[in-house]
């Protein structure tokens, strides 16, 4: 398990959101796996904890689905790295998933802000 000093403040990624984050990151331009992880962590202001093993499995899954494609290249500090870039199909998915996510968060927000007070856990 990945650990850092301020681990308690971080949130494990929700199922399915990792795909969306990867696609969003790659819209900015081709990037290797480590860069993707770093970017997600930075852009979420270090809130998200990216499990690197899961990240690579997810990258492979997206590649199998042809939403992204990969090619070996050379990193800025001259290391051989596998670079991922988003495909046209991936862009479509990104738009769709983003919409879904917005609807979900809005709905969550509506319920959480409705002021009925906390319910019992099982309800």
């Amino acid at each position: 398990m990945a650990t850092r000093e301020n681990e308690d403040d971080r949130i494990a990624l929700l199922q399915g959101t990792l795909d969306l984050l990867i696609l969003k990151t790659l819209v900015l331009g081709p990037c290797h796996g480590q860069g993707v992880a770093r970017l997600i962590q930075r852009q979420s202001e270090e809130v998200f904890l990216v499990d690197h093993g899961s990240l690579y499995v997810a990258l492979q899954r997206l590649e199998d689905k042809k939403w992204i494609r990969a090619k070996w290249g050379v990193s800025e500090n001259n290391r051989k790295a596998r670079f991922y870039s988003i495909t046209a199909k991936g862009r479509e998915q990104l738009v769709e998933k983003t919409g879904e996510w917005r609807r979900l968060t809005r709905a969550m927000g509506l319920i959480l802000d409705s002021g009925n007070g906390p319910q019992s856990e099982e309800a």
Partner: protein
Amino acid sequence: MFRRKRSAEDFAEEIKTHLELEADELQSSGLSEDEARWRARREFGNVRAAQERFYLKGRWASLDKLLRDLRFGLRSLRHSPGFAATAIVTLALGVGANTAVFSLMNAVLLRSLPVSDPDRLMYLRTNNPPHGTGTIDSRETFSYPVYDALRQQGGAFSPLMAYVPLSGSKVAVRYGADPEEAEGDMVSGTFFSGLGVRLVRGHAFTERDETNHAAIAVISYNYWTRRFARNPDVLGTALYVNGVPITIVGVAAEGFEGVEGGGSTDFWIPLQSRAELNAWGNPLEDGKNYIANQTWWCLRLIGRLAPGKNRAQVVAQLQPVFQRAAYAGLGTPMAGEKPPVLSLADAKNFPGYSEQYGNPLRMLMAMVGLVLLIALTNVVMLLVARNGARQREFSVRQALGAGRGELLRQLLAESLILVTAGGALAWGFAEMATRLLGRWAQIESSLAPDKTVLLFTLGVLVMAALLLALAPLRVALAGGAQLALKTSAATANTDAGKSRTGRVIVALQMALCLVLLVGAGLLIRTLRNLQNTPLGMRIEGLVVFGVKPNIQSIPEGVAFYVNLMNRLRALPGVESVTVMEERLGAGWSDNSAMRVDGKLPDVANGSSGTVRSNVVGPDFFRTLGVPVLAGRDFADSDTATSPHAGIINEQFAQRFFPHQNPLGHTIGTEDGRYQMTVIGVVKDHKYRSINEEPIPMAWYMYAQIPMTGAMQVEMRVRGEPLAILPSARKALQEMNPNLPLIQPMTQRAQYDLTISGQVLFARLAGFFGFLAVVLVAAGLYGTLAYRVSMRTAEIGVRMAVGAQRGQVVWMILRGSLLLTAAGVVIGIPSAMLVGHALASSLYGVKPLDAVSYLLAVVGVALVALAASVVPAARAAGVDPMRALRME
């Protein structure tokens, strides 16, 4: 798609890069190289786990898993070879029997005529031809004037085709030096083009060939293969048909063997006009062939509906034309006579086949369906028993984390192995069985399994595989993970041992077995009755063959047969020789009304005036061994110049000469042209077939009747009847080297042919009944043995507290006898239904034949007893101490 483009090494490489990049970054933020590398690695987490997840996600993994399941299945089946062999053989028998019978059914009932667009082909039928006509088949044959009138009606059929055999059986042909026989048809010039049958070599006929009666022939692919070894040089050579040279001009497409079921046509020639090539091989009647003789309904007609026309329209258009043409040569219909009515019948399938074999085949299909059901339940029960014994294994695996899906996959893999092996064996078994079936049924057309049969078999196998995988799953899961924690297998398994489902299945199997046994019993008793039917003659020692000399005049014909009979009588071992026009036991008869004392007799209410007649030679009844009750047999002294003589049977005497001595009365043909004096009365005997009722018969002397054509020669010989054939052939060919012996066989065999369908049916039914019994016995044995083994501990306890061996044996036997009783109670009403459905196939047995039912019940009980004895003995042999100590 099992392959993924990316290798596991590539993935590992990427992770390595990640760690390096991460370390670089950490290093640049001020950590030492070692520290940075360690932190990068710690941050990543479990590298191996990631790699494994990558691997498992790959599609390779699922194939790998399947292979692993199969390997595991094979290994676990190898541990119980007895079980595996039993299951595979049972499956093979069940599936193979179904495939074989289905192949036959497919070939006979389902397969279409091998022509283009068979849906629009129609056989022409009529209800009954007018009075005063002669027919081959009162519903299916037509006169030449009818054919000629109908084909000239444009817009009804395009085209209308006639076809007619050159002989009732096979026709004498010669290719090169040796005379032989083949099946040949005369057909319309439009026959091949109208049916849409392609030719693989040469060309077909034209309408002009029909008009000119061209001496050309198209041979079937089968004949080309069988007789000419597919030699292409055969085109252009001569085939002598009844001595007439015919040039072979074409070979028909493979699989086309004529448009009638049953036989397979070897060659076709355009409609001919020569006397040697008359329809059905008949001699000319008053010098007229089938074209000139307007009242001989001998042609079969088939037509292709004209484009845009349906059946009703075509019938409506042709009906008046048909009714007018039907009276060609007859004048106007008699007063009150209803004109014949034309109708059409689908020519899509072989109609003759479906009448002859349809019902028996459907019954057989149902029987083998039941056999398959029994076989499958057997294997399921075996599997359940086996998996019951493996319940601990399953429980342990569940406890160790195997999901239901994994267990199901395991069971599926095992069932797949069993079904694949069983299926392969079944296919071989079916091929063999189909060939045997075809030979027995004397179906000459191709029975080779085609795509339909393959699909059927695969369908059955897939069903079997699913059933075999799913049925035992319940038992496998029943234990659950907690069973592994129980200490005693014996106590854990008692539930399975007493399974109610198992008992219900055994009882149902008993019921099915009873049904099959009753059906088989009824049919086998029918067979017995048929085979033991007295024929009314001394059948042993009789041999019969046909001769078809080319004869121009009546005296020449009589001289030929006198000469032939004298030559044959002189052969060593020959007791007596005679001739006849219609062969006995060939299923044919010549039926007509007869004049008695100069007038058509008034017959008592309800009885028919129809008399069956035959034209025969001297010593006819002595040769056959039919007793002459009054008067005398025909003799050499009855010649063309002596008073015309006739002989009648008892039925004739009783119906037309009640209470008087028939000798000396005159009888004659319907039209009054031939008169003869009754010189003898003979005992009734079987004439046309074994399963017929006697009807009035009369015999004419061949020398006194204007006939010149083919005759059947009947010889009574000492010793093996067929051994006389080589010398008989030599005697005949000394007279004319072109003449073969046509269809030589013993008279017994000829009669047996008339019941060959029933014989086949009964034998098959008997075989499948037997198969069912074996399967049920095996299944019952397996189930009981399993149940007893599950109850070992219980029996041990019983014996420990004082149960006697006899009591234990009785306990086991009583269980299976109760099951038998239940099976009988369910089975008898079902068997009665089956008996009812079989009624039309029975001879001399009632559908409710008590003996058959009794034997079936006894049979089922014996099976139950036999299957119970070994497990019961084993139960009694249980050592109480050991049984209790087992856990």
